[in-house]
């Protein structure tokens, strides 16, 4: 009886191994660490597969975990491309020697701030940072709708705001840099300390706040705006607020990892993603991302950039200062 | 096959370990002849089981040799000694039925299925388990399990059979029956056997020879009759059966017992000196009456009816009370407590042990 069972188990294991073995690429393959949220990443990369026939294997990782994973694997990289995450993260990766340069012809048309001069990274969409607000719910509770960063400090919002965690999300870091650019570093930290009691939770992923907004877990969410815009477009009772003092933005980029096993497919992705066709895909697939090519207009449902008071910050400095700033946040804001 | 034990010592622990050194078997030497059933008899802790386990290979001797025939087998692992053992707890494999239990050892050898079947069937009949081959151990009674253990050992046709108190878990009636069966089987098969027990009646009834052990040493080896009637010391005498020891002395004038003149009608060949005379309960005769000086007398303290014998406790001046067994059908009237009784000894039952100065 025992023998039969052993044989059965051995056979099933063998079968499983065989099955998994045959899953290995017959066509060209590309392994991607994506900091773009899964749904959008899948939509975009599926179009890429359709256009080029290259199969994509994707793992979603917030920018923090993605960077750690890439650093941990640098001796033997398991992925080929880091797809998404604000550009300052890619600058850090470049400085740490984790990526390799590739200057794509199609990237020639991009403005200076959207690509690395040496080709180590290329941006492919941008997004402003704003608030998603359940205005009706707020009104029901007799609370005002915030219009500025300072408004968020109102004690009426105690425990009602969600934002991503600077410890794991590039979105949160972009927010901090925006605040620093707008108010100066020390004032920014004073602000964030004061904001802490109003924060319900710092989410692990950069897209957590919008999802929680959608199910009513939170009333105010701070995040890059595509998710909010999508909610509004779908008829959801949410509204998007761009803070009066200044609106930061991310230029989400991608880089090819040094030592990537599938180099040609990786280059193909860079070429494709900043092409006119791909940038149109951003609109077609309702990602609500802003394109980086000037000859592609923003899609439906996106407010024109001219109406938003964009605040830029030095990405290179942001890259250099990241560790110190995050540490400062953890100790001063989290450790209260 | 004969077995020879040569100055075997077994120590547990060591001087520098907590608890110190414990010598369980102390330079024991023994010879077991081919076809003999020798019993190791003694109280718990005397070393008999340790000795048996060393012979089986489950304990390693500290020094000394164990020989099967001419071969020294100290370093032979237990699974290669062909000395089948019947364990105290039977150690029947709970996951196998009776037939498979018995066949277990055979399956480890290069035998055909037919041979295994044949030998198993034969042994099943031999021990009287016919019809129970398919049962699970949990469905067997204690006696039946014991037979399975026996069958399992015997089917191996071993050169040596070892028994580790196999009957101690059975009730008295079953024990009696089983020991007769075991002895019959052993004699029929003629396998050299070593048997361990603390039950002296068991030892006496089935053994060719008995080895009495105490505290790791052999006290006396001999046939049962010899051990019973001619024990070499008090320990052996008291361990096998009941015994009383009365101080007596032989001088040129004759014997004195408890300070009074006495004619034992035995021990004539012994040199003068101080002795303890061993008296067994069945070797004492009581008769009512008699405060005559020439006879030994005592007061009956208690009488107990045991079925086959009447047991009396008689007070003797100058020594402990004496236990006396009188056959129940002796025709004698029961002596009630308080009666004065005349005490005489059966000469054949007396045994003299020299008293050390």
């Amino acid at each position, binding site marked *: 009886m*025992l023998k039969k*069972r052993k044989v059965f*188990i051995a056979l099933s294991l063998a079968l*499983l191994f065989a099955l*998994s073995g045959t899953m290995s690429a017959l066509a060209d393959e590309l392994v991607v660490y994506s900091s773009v949220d*899964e749904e959008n990443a*899948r939509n975009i990369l599926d179009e890429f597969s359709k256009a080029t026939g290259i199969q994509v294997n994707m*793992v*979603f990782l*917030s920018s923090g*975990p993605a960077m*750690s994973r890439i650093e*941990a*694997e640098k001796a*033997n990289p*398991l992925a080929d491309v880091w797809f998404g995450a604000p550009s300052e993260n890619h600058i850090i990766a470049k400085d740490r020697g984790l990526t390799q340069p590739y200057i794509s012809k199609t990237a020639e048309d991009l403005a200076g701030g959207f690509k690395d001069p040496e080709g180590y990274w290329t941006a492919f969409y941008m997004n402003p940072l704003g608030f998603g607000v359940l205005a009706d719910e707020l009104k029901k509770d007799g609370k005002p709708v915030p219009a500025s960063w300072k408004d968020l400090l109102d004690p009426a919002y105690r*425990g009602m705001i969600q934002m991503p965690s600077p*410890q*794991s999300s590039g979105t949160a870091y972009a927010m901090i840099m925006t605040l620093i650019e707008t108010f100066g570093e020390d004032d920014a930290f004073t602000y964030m300390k004061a904001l*802490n009691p109003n924060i*319900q*939770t710092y*989410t692990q992923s950069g897209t*957590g706040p919008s999802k929680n907004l959608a*199910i*009513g*877990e939170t*009333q105010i969410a701070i995040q890059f705006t595509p998710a909010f815009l999508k909610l509004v477009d779908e008829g959801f009772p949410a509204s998007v607020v761009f803070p009066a003092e200044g609106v930061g933005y991310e230029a989400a980029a991608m880089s090819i990892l040094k030592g990537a096993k599938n180099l040609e497919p990786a280059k193909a992705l860079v070429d494709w993603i900043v092409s006119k066709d791909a940038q149109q895909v951003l609109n077609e697939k309702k990602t609500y991302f802003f394109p980086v090519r000037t000859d592609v207009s923003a899609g439906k449902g996106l407010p024109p950039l001219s109406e938003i008071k964009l605040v830029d910050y030095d990405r290179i400095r942001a890259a250099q200062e990241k560790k110190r700033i*995050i540490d400062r946040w*953890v*100790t001063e804001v*989290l*450790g*209260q | 096959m004969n077995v020879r034990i040569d100055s075997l010592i077994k120590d547990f622990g060591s*001087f*520098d370990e907590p608890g110190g050194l414990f010598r369980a078997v102390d330079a024991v030497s023994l010879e077991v002849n081919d076809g003999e059933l020798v019993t190791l008899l003694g109280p718990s802790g005397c070393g008999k089981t340790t000795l048996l386990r060393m012979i089986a*290979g*489950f304990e*390693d001797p500290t020094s000394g040799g164990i020989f099967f025939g001419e071969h020294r087998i100290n370093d032979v*692992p*237990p*699974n290669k000694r062909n000395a*089948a*053992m019947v*364990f*105290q*707890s039977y*150690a*029947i*494999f709970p*996951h196998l039925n009776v037939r498979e239990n018995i066949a277990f*050892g055979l399956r*480890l050898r290069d035998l055909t299925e037919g041979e295994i079947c044949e030998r198993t069937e034969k042994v099943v009949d031999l021990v009287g388990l016919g019809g129970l081959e398919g049962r699970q*151990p949990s469905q*067997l*009674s*204690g006696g039946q399990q014991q037979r399975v*253990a026996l069958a*399992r050992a015997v089917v*191996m046709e071993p050169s040596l059979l070892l028994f580790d108190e196999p009957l101690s878990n059975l009730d008295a009636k079953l024990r009696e029956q089983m020991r007769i069966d075991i002895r019959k089987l052993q004699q029929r098969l003629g396998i050299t056997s070593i048997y361990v027990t603390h039950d002296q009646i068991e030892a006496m009834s089935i053994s060719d020879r008995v080895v009495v052990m105490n505290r790791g040493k052999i006290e006396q080896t001999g046939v049962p009759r010899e051990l019973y009637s001619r024990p070499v010391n008090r320990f052996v005498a008291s361990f096998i059966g009941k015994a009383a020891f009365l101080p007596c002395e032989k001088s040129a004038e004759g014997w004195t017992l408890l300070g009074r003149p006495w004619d034992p009608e035995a021990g004539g060949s012994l040199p003068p000196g101080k002795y303890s005379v061993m008296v067994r309960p069945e070797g004492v005769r009581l008769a009512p009456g008699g405060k005559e000086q020439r006879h030994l007398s005592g007061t009956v303290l208690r009488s107990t009816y045991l079925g086959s014998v009447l047991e009396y406790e008689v007070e003797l001046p100058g020594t402990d009370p004496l236990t006396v067994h009188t056959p129940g059908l002796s025709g004698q009237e029961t002596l009630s407590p308080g009666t004065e009784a005349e005490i005489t000894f059966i000469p054949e039952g007396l045994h003299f042990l020299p008293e050390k100065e």
Partner: protein
Amino acid sequence: MGAFSKGRREIRLLARDPLLALLIALLFLSLALFVGYPLISVLVKSLQSEEGGFSLANYGRFFTFRYLRSSLWNSLTAGFFTAACSVVIGYTAAFTMTRTSIPCKKALHLLFILPIISPPFTSALSILMLFGANGLITRGLLGIRNYNIYGFRGVLLSQVFTFAPVAYLTLRGVLESLNPTLEDAAMNVGAGRMQTFTKVTLPLSLPGLASAFLVVLIESLADFGNPLVLAGSRFPMLSTQAYLEITGSFNLPLGAALAVVLLIPSITSFAIQRYYLQKRQYTTVTGKPTASSSKLVSRGARRCLFTFAAGFSGFVLLFYGTIFTGAFTKVWGYDFSPTIAHFTYAFSVGAGTIRDTLIVALCATPVSGLLGMLIAFLVVRTSFPGKGIMEFTSILNFAVPGTVIGIGYILAFNRPPLMLMGTLAVLVLNFVFRYIPVGIQSGIAVLRQIDPSIEEAAQNLGADRITTFRKVTLPIIAPAFFSGLVFAFVRAMTAISAAIFLVSANWNLLTVQILNQVGSGRLGVAAAFSVILVVIVAAAMAVIARLVPGRTGGMAAIRIQED
């Protein structure tokens, strides 16, 4: 001198059985490589500065940075309260099941242990759905708006729900082996019910209670999933901070240091539990669960206990019902129209993950079970130099939080000579050695119950040690072996704390997938994955229960009837 001569004797004995000696050597090597090496790597890394030189700065941070001290304090506080509540609930439940005759015992038992077969943070998920700002109970039922479940209360609630069943199982075993005749004896000489309970039952249960307390404490400290979801903004905890330092800030040395600090209370509790308490267990000699005497519990008490039991099971049903509902409704809290969209999405992104998880669990479980039995056999039946070390090392993983092990594996196997990161092997190895202690524990317990003369009988009849193990020991301990397998499989399927460090593009695990979905706010999808996971585990357990005759729910007591 004494130790050496004993060692030499043991080696001599081993030399006679070369196969055995080889086996022991291999085991030592594996344990050193896959248990010792990662742990030492963590320790070494924690003593490095970011540049690589020796430094105590990481530990120094505990004194300078408040948030680290808070994390430690929070973890300990949550741990103690969780342990206390779990033990109370578990003991009451165990008492109800073993000392009263209430109806539906089997169903209640199954419900009590249901939380064990799901990922540890499932409760966090349902708590969010029930008690969150838009929770069904908080807003829907009680009309409380914006109730903040994050923080201490959320963590406590989810951990108690997750670990009270563990305490229940342990304490049930304790109460089952306490001979109720003792209680009868007390009442016989005049003690009242409450007196009997306080003077007999409770004192005899005390070592078991302390033991259960410590076990839950260790589990709570190591718990990663629940705090990750529910700790919120102002209740940092050590296990999650260690994770965040490593994956977020890529500060390996600091993460390692936090892991080491997490290790200290865990190992201390473990040491106390094993070496002090286990010696004082008042279990009776017979291992059999004895029938309960219902005279100890009065009618009224029985009713109360039944209500309690029903209440707790009600909670379990509520939590699981929530997950189930969440998986099948469109948008929790807003739109309860039924849908299978979440499942469709789950299968589209997660089919590979489901397959991966099954492969890992199916590979790791039998290996873990067999190795566990083997080590148990060696520990109980043989003696060789270094046996104590082998026993200790193999159970060490019990005390070490998953986070620490995960970090250790990253550090140890991310560079030559063993580059295992990203492979199936690293996941399987991690699970095998993590859950070996379970197999060892149950193996030791069962082996100790087997009369050693059974194995001697086999040897006496000609079997060598390995054959004895194969043909006699293994079949007898099979039921315990299979229950150990079940446990290992369940754990492998529901593990998160170490797994989260070891997944890769090639091999992903369901639990990580669920957490990702929660983190991204897709509660419906997370619920769908959870349902899939629980169904797989339940199915596997049912299959194993079918294949194995006899009880798999407890230790098989090997007893031969005696007249």
